[in-house]
């Protein structure tokens, strides 16, 4: 009945060690055309990514990324979904300032945000991430590299995994020269390693994927945790904000409302499905249908969100 653990694990480790060697690509020559940045507040430059599914056409330019410029230093908020996107961001920085890029904040472990980080290796910045980030990165990197290759083909070349060099669990104040920026680590929400960036002088809040606008919000952490973190985010006094996906002209914190409504619908209806003894399959077929039409890529992410919520809430 009981398996011989030592033999099993020995075989497993031998094989897995062979499998975890990351593929190495030669850096490609593809570049992102018409990479625009918008200065939404003095010194805060945002590039808005595309809602389209990742492809060789958009080169993984799918997330909102950007940078903050101080008197001495530049801080990049994420690096985009591929080396070409990271390079485009770096070039956009160079069009604005010759100052060194001292920090690259890796807001969480998703590939649409981090795969461009290799573009900044020569700058030798601090790559800042949540304390939970390395474990998640180690666990996911092989499959993320695989799927990047699948979606981008040759254009995936050079999009390496970049390890963070500084991990945080408490708010971290950084002086960019004449401006203080606060990088904050959050409890599990969108993922278990979410960071926000707050530019103090302009009160600009970079939320990354703790805020989706228009695009279906994604739960890769915990739905109850996400709602709890959103409550704390609401309390932040911000004049400007940057979602991880999408854009809005609504005053802060109103853009949180739609996402909160969506999560609340999932939370309530999934709990009801569990109470009425419905299976996870039934729940994914039925929960949250009233939200259809409000969100881009709903078919791709909604059922997955319900699956995640169900697996979390069935233990309540």
């Amino acid at each position, binding site marked *: 009945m009981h398996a011989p653990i030592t033999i099993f694990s020995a075989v497993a480790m031998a094989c897995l060690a062979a499998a975890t060697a990351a593929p190495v690509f030669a850096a490609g020559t593809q570049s992102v055309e018409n990479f625009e940045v918008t200065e939404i507040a003095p010194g805060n430059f945002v590039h808005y990514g595309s809602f389209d599914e990742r492809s060789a056409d958009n080169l993984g330019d799918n997330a909102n990324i950007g940078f903050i410029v101080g008197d001495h230093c530049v801080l990049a908020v994420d690096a985009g979904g591929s080396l070409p996107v990271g390079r485009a961001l770096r070039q956009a920085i160079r069009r604005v300032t010759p100052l060194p890029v001292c920090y690259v904040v890796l807001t969480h472990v998703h590939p649409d945000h981090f795969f461009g980080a290799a573009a900044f290796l020569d700058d030798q910045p601090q790559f800042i991430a949540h304390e939970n980030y390395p474990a998640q990165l180690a666990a996911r990197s092989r*499959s993320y590299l695989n799927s990047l290759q699948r979606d981008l083909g040759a254009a995936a070349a050079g999009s390496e995994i970049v390890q963070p060099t500084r991990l945080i669990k408490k708010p971290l104040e950084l002086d960019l020269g004449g401006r203080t920026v606060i990088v904050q680590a959050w409890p*599990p929400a969108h993922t278990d390693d979410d960071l926000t960036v707050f530019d103090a002088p302009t009160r600009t809040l970079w939320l990354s994927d703790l805020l989706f606008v228009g695009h279906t919000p994604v739960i890769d952490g915990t739905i109850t945790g996400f709602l709890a973190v959103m409550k704390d985010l609401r309390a932040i006094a911000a004049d400007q904000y940057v979602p991880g996906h999408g854009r809005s002209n609504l005053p802060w914190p109103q853009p949180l409302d739609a996402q909160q409504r969506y999560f609340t619908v999932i939370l309530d209806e999934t709990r009801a499905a569990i109470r009425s003894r419905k299976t996870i399959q039934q729940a994914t077929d039925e929960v949250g249908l009233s939200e259809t039409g409000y969100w881009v890529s709903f078919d791709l992410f909604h059922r997955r969100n319900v699956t995640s919520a169900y697996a979390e809430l069935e233990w309540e």
Partner: protein
Amino acid sequence: MKTCLRLAAGGILALLVIAPAYANEKAEPDPAQSQYWGPIRQIMFADRVINPDTRDVIRVYLNLRADDASTVPVVVKAQIDQTEKEYIKSIYVIVERNPSPVAGVFHFTPGSGRAQVETRLRFEDFSFVRAVAEMNDGRLYMSQRWVKAAGGCSAPNGKKLAESLLGKMKLRFDDDMITYHKPNLVQLLIRHPNESPLAANFVEGQVPQFVRSVKVTFDGKPVMKAEVDFSLSDNPNFRFFFTPEEKGELKIEVEDTHDRKFSHSINISEGVPLPGG
């Protein structure tokens, strides 16, 4: 392609196949031509004939496009009744492109009522899921489904499990009350990280913790027995039938790869509400 195939001593299959780094097909390949299935089939069933006739014995139910590769519900249903004369003895659930393809082996008896199991799987890559039914006379029947899901073996759940919760179990019944002499559907939930060796910073000497065996009995008589693997999602989850003839104790015994034993039981009798909602 790096392939490792071993059969661990001790009876349980511990197959390990490392898929080619890039399996790029987005369309469903021909199940009979799968390069993955051949070696697995050879180790598990050698030269035994699979599907000796055209009978519809077993089916796999899954969505073609999985919603979450780390939590993919799968249902394997027998299409024949369990009788003393003829019954499904075991069902093998195989995710052929997973690093450890045998997700679980489930054992049934004529008294199981129905040979049916639902669980949740992780998918490392787009893959066929195969279910092989082994009859009491040794005949083998197989069916399979193609699933588009990837990255699930490497994608750990965001939540860390508190040590105090490890091995906690919950039973949920489909009905409010028990009915004797007929199959009752019950769901078993087990709190366990079911660590995938792919989902951790793998340090030499470190043994991933995952659930190895699950045994369900009713008043000491077997209901369902399963040997399982890290292809199951974290917090392993099963739905199966059991047919009580009278009141008694439904007992679950679970063992993991760290030799920890967990158990849970409830008393069942007519007229007493069942946990479930």
